[in-house]
């Protein structure tokens, strides 16, 4: 009997993909930012306000340090900000809590409907690139929330950075709602609304200023922790090999230097390159990382004070110049993913020459350094 049901349930699973999913559940009322509810012709809608509390700021801080960042989400669906009515604007957001908070906190003293898409807790731009912040999801949420019964107008405001995923004309065709693309930054929304849905050129330009670049450093730094847990002890122990003295004496000299040199390269690629980005020469991020890495290596080696007239000292210095520069370049190259202006074609082109170069430099450097441990 049980076996009989199996093919049936398998068919159902396959069918489930081609058929639109069942109407989505409304957002839960017990989320900690919900302040009661609003009655609408389409049922009760959770009410929210514009005030961010300590726990919201703390949540953002943690997410920036990659703590629970992939799980920092709100329920998708419709929310009422303040006291919206059938004339109030509908603003679309992602269900990444930081996106949602940026939107509601920018609308202080205003009444609006906020339609949150299920982007699996990812911010608007990235989710649009992945397609989860997309036309299908917009159409589905409009339907699921019963938006047609709640507002008289037929317009929604989608953040401009949702553009890679949301096709305005298709949403109009499929849902009857016209898409207006709002400004990039939530903080510009009040000005946009007051100007009659007009965004200035500056509001439509994706910047990458110092503050934005610095905000990305913590996550990038955290991402280097895991490999570092492996790399640091290995460098320390390699430093103990060969050399003039006993193993631990060597390790506490050459090994400790290697660890510090490694950390300086991490700081160069992950922190200094992003901070100095517009002022560094070259367009490729690798070039920028090489400049920073070479400068750091020069400083570190100066402090190390090796005699360059003795072979082991010369090889050690040269090896670490290679390794620091290559690591900084590699980490700088990975910052392309965080930047707001690099194209896929460009990154592929850069990687074709940069990755082999970085690998060759690190290999030469490591081989040179280990060799230097055995020459007296």
């Amino acid at each position, binding site marked *: 009997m049980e076996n009989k049901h199996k093919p049936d349930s398998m068919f159902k699973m396959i069918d489930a993909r081609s058929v639109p999913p069942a109407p989505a559940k409304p957002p839960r009322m017990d989320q900690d930012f919900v302040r009661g509810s609003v009655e609408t012709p389409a049922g009760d809608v959770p009410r929210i306000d514009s005030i961010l509390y300590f726990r919201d700021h703390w949540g953002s801080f943690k997410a920036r340090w990659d703590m629970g960042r992939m799980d920092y989400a709100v329920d998708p669906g419709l929310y009422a900000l303040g006291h919206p009515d059938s004339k109030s604007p509908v603003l679309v957001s992602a269900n990444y809590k930081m996106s949602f908070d940026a939107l509601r906190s920018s609308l202080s003293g205003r009444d609006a409907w906020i339609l949150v898409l299920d982007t699996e807790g990812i*911010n608007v731009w990235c989710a649009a690139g992945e397609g989860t912040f997309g036309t299908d999801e917009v159409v589905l949420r409009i339907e699921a929330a019963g938006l047609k019964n709640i507002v008289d107008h037929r317009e929604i405001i989608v953040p401009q950075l949702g553009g890679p995923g949301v096709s305005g004309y298709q949403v109009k065709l499929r849902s009857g709602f016209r898409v207006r693309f709002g400004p990039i930054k939530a903080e510009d929304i009040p000005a946009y609304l007051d100007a009659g849905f007009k965004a200035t050129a500056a509001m439509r330009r994706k910047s990458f200023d110092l503050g*934005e670049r610095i905000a990305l450093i913590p996550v990038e730094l955290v991402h280097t922790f895991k490999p570092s847990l492996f790399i640091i002890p290995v460098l320390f122990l390699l430093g103990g090999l060969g050399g003039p003295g006993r193993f631990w004496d060597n390790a506490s000299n050459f090994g400790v230097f290697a660890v510090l040199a490694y950390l300086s390269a991490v700081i160069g690629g992950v922190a200094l390159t992003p901070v100095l980005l517009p002022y560094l020469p070259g367009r490729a991020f690798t070039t920028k990382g090489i400049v920073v890495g070479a400068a750091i290596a020069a400083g570190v080696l100066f402090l190390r004070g090796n005699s360059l007239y003795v072979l082991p000292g010369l090889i050690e210095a040269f090896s670490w110049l290679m390794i620091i520069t290559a690591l900084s370049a590699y980490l700088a190259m990975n910052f392309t993913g965080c930047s*707001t*202006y690099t194209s*896929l074609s460009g990154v592929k082109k850069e990687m074709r020459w940069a990755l082999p170069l970085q690998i060759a430099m690190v290999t030469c450097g490591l081989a040179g350094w280990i060799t230097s441990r055995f020459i007296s």
Partner: protein
Amino acid sequence: MKELLYLKDVTTLKLDEGRCNGCGACLEVCPHEVFVMNSNRVHIRNRDACMECGACRQNCAFGAISVQSGVGCAAGIINSLTGGNSGTCCMSDCSCAPESN
């Protein structure tokens, strides 16, 4: 501050001006002012500013724009090369502009 530009002559962006009807949807969604409106037709102002996000193609109702869109993220490309999930940078663990609205 000067405009940040990535590599020259790499973008796959193409505009078929014959199909353009001048609605201006692409100007609205482009985050880098790649396009400009001249006498009711859109033209490319600065190709090198294009980051291939694909918003313009997605919103052109007349099929006048083609671009191979994707995320310009080295970590994502390395992930997919090493057998990780194919190019889904953000879904794995790239920081990916967490502040954007």
